[in-house]
């Protein structure tokens, strides 16, 4: 397949010499900082925020490097470089994160400048994947492809990436700051669980306008974001975000890191008073300095490669007959694809959640295969999803079965997207210094228990999220079934929450009762699901049955085994 312009990567911003110069300067800067740390001119306390702003964490056993995948988009060449890094500097694998990034868990500090240099060679970096700054901006994994999309949010995601990069005023905020952007009426970015969530749609003059949500988040204090601004004009996007983040930088708490997120400030002031402060800041800004002119937006849009969506007239027909001829393929199409805006194309989701596997872990060989398949089937474009899976966005319908055969042959054809097996889990006590419990083994046991694809499809849409501590990196509050690891006198226990959602029906899950011992947790969830299967109305999803009947109907199943 050919792309419209050979030099421009499909679906993401094309770097030029200026952008590459910036990246190489950033690498040189970090190398110099590591040098000062090694020489003792920087204390660990001083070095920490500098390394965090280059994505380097110190975990339980080793350094972890989190590489930015801006708005989840990367190219096949970049994926191959990640595979190389996994082989050379890590233990042959990487891990896709819920912020659409990839992290390597076994990195040596002294190798990091070299790794960053290799990344810069393919226009990648680890800038602001950690630290108290504006983090990687996340986006709809079906952006620019989805049939239900109103506008492609990636152009503005790129604008926000650039604007937030080494922002002089906002690099030492009270706490981290996460922005998500969607251009679809169906929220696939958890807009209301972000510090700022932006939902874009076309405005009256043909330019985009944005609904702005602020102060959402999970963590220790889960809060649903409030609606701050209706139909913000595109030209004011940067000015308005500057105003919001400024109010946060000036007034956000710095005395207690657990009370330092913007959500706590919004709650403390109340939305009206918070909005007054933002409006006052916005009103006195030199707005001309921050105006996002259509010419700037179009200049950045012109740097995005566009896929040449040309499919044979009978592509859809071919897919229909392929599905009729192969029941396994048909099931995978039902569970692992998403409708494309072009009738001859479809988006395919590659599950990185094999039965009994570790959610989001991908080997170097799998990375290479995904890169090859992206080149062959989807214009070299790869998307990392916030569910820790991978999307090939533009696959011709008549070639979908060929793609599936290749995936299936490599163990990447698990048909479980949106089902029980599509679990989000944090790294937990296997890696993380903060964790109280191991999230991964619970995810593996659940995934193995429900491996039968017929059973999974019969159970239907079910989001399970597992966090190893109250920092909630596994987003347990947002799961239909949330699982939180807690420590009880040195033993791992797991607390269940029910009824959460990060989508349009956004809700925070409620604790159903006392935490369960590790060895009873998977059985309890199995009984919970059995109860749902008995109680559900025809065609009713778990979350809807739960909402109709309430927690009481499920509590007995969890705590009173037959």
């Amino acid at each position, binding site marked *: 397949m050919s792309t419209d312009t050979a030099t421009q990567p499909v679906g993401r911003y094309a770097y030029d010499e*200026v*952008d590459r*110069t*910036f990246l190489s*300067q*950033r690498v*040189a*800067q970090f190398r*110099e*900082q590591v040098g*000062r740390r090694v020489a003792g*001119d920087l204390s660990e306390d*001083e070095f920490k*925020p*500098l390394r965090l702003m280059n994505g380097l964490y110190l975990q339980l056993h080793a350094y972890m490097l989190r590489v930015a995948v801006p708005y989840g988009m990367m190219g096949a060449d970049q994926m191959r470089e990640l595979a190389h890094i996994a082989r050379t500097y890590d233990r042959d694998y990487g891990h896709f994160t819920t912020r659409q990034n990839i992290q390597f868990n076994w990195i040596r500090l002294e190798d990091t400048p070299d790794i960053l240099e290799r990344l810069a060679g393919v226009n990648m970096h680890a800038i602001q994947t950690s630290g*108290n700054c504006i983090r990687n901006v996340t986006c709809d994994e079906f952006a620019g492809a989805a049939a239900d999309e109103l506008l492609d949010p990636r152009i503005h995601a790129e*604008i926000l990436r*650039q*604007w*937030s*990069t*080494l*922002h*002089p*005023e*906002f*690099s*030492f*905020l009270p706490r981290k700051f996460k922005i998500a952007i969607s251009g679809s009426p169906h929220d696939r970015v958890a807009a209301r669980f972000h510090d700022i969530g932006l939902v874009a749609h076309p405005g009256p003059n043909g330019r985009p306008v944005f609904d702005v949500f602020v102060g959402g988040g999970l963590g220790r204090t889960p809060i649903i974001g409030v609606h701050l601004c209706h139909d913000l004009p595109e030209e004011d996007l*940067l000015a308005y975000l500057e105003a919001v983040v*400024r109010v946060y*930088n*000036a007034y956000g708490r*710095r005395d207690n890191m657990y009370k330092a997120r913007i959500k706590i400030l919004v709650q403390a002031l109340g939305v009206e008073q918070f909005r007054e402060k933002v409006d006052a800041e916005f009103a*006195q*800004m*030199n707005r001309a*300095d*921050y105006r996002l002119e259509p*010419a*700037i937006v*179009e*200049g*950045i849009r*012109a740097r995005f490669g566009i896929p040449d969506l040309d499919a044979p007239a009978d592509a859809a027909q071919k897919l229909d007959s392929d599905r009729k001829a192969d029941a396994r393929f048909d099931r995978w199409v039902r569970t692992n694809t998403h409708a494309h805006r072009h009738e001859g194309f479809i988006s395919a989701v590659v599950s990185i959640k094999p039965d009994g596997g570790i959610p989001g872990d991908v080997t170097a060989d799998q990375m290479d295969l995904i890169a090859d398949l992206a080149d062959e089937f989807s214009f070299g474009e790869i998307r990392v999803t916030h569910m820790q899976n991978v999307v090939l966005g533009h696959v011709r319908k008549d070639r979908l079965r060929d793609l599936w055969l290749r995936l299936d042959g490599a163990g990447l054809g698990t048909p479980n997207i949106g089902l029980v097996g599509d679990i989000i889990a944090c790294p937990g006590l296997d890696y993380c210094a903060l964790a109280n419990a191991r999230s991964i083994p619970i995810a593996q046991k659940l995934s193995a228990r429900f491996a039968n694809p017929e059973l999974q499809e019969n159970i239907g849409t079910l989001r399970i999220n597992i966090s190893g501590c109250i920092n909630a990196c596994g987003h347990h509050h947002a799961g239909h079934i949330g699982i939180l690891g807690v420590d009880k006198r040195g033993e791992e226990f797991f607390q269940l929450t029910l009824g959460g959602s990060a989508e349009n029906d956004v809700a925070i899950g409620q604790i159903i009762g006392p935490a369960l011992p590790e060895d009873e947790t998977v059985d309890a969830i199995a009984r919970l699901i059995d109860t749902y299967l008995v109680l559900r109305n025809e065609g009713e999803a778990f979350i809807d049955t739960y909402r109709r009947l309430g927690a009481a109907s499920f509590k007995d199943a969890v705590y009173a085994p037959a």
Partner: protein
Amino acid sequence: MPLLENGHVTEDRWAQAIAGEALPAGAVIVPLERLEEGLARPKDAPLGVAIGPDVDVAVLRPALPRLGLVAVTFPSFRDGRAFTQARALREHLSFTGEIRATGTPLPDQYEFLLRCGVTTVQTDRAEDVAVWQQAHEIISIAYQPSVLHERPQGLGLRRFLATD
């Protein structure tokens, strides 16, 4: 470290007010609590004020025409409130005098300080001035507007930073 201006060592012509003592006759920086006392001096006596990170710079508005310097402070390099104060002084209050960063900012924050409108840095840190100069020169490209009004490069958000 000596006083730093645009990456170079410069002479400090300002005296600090000493607690419990009368203000000297020449250029002096007073804490915000002694601003009235400073303003009571002759109108041509150079006056600066030092503010804490929790101060809304709007309180300086009436006094600003008389002020030649505002000192903002970093109690810790992690506390970024002074960035917002400096930028607001330039952008909202159109302050054109010296903005001095005090406390313990890191050399790695130097470019951020300059782009928020800080002109001089006075810290107790021990680094050689060369580390600060290097921090100023190492990155030459930025991706957002600042109070220094660097000219955008092409159609986009990028701009080149001055490194002299």
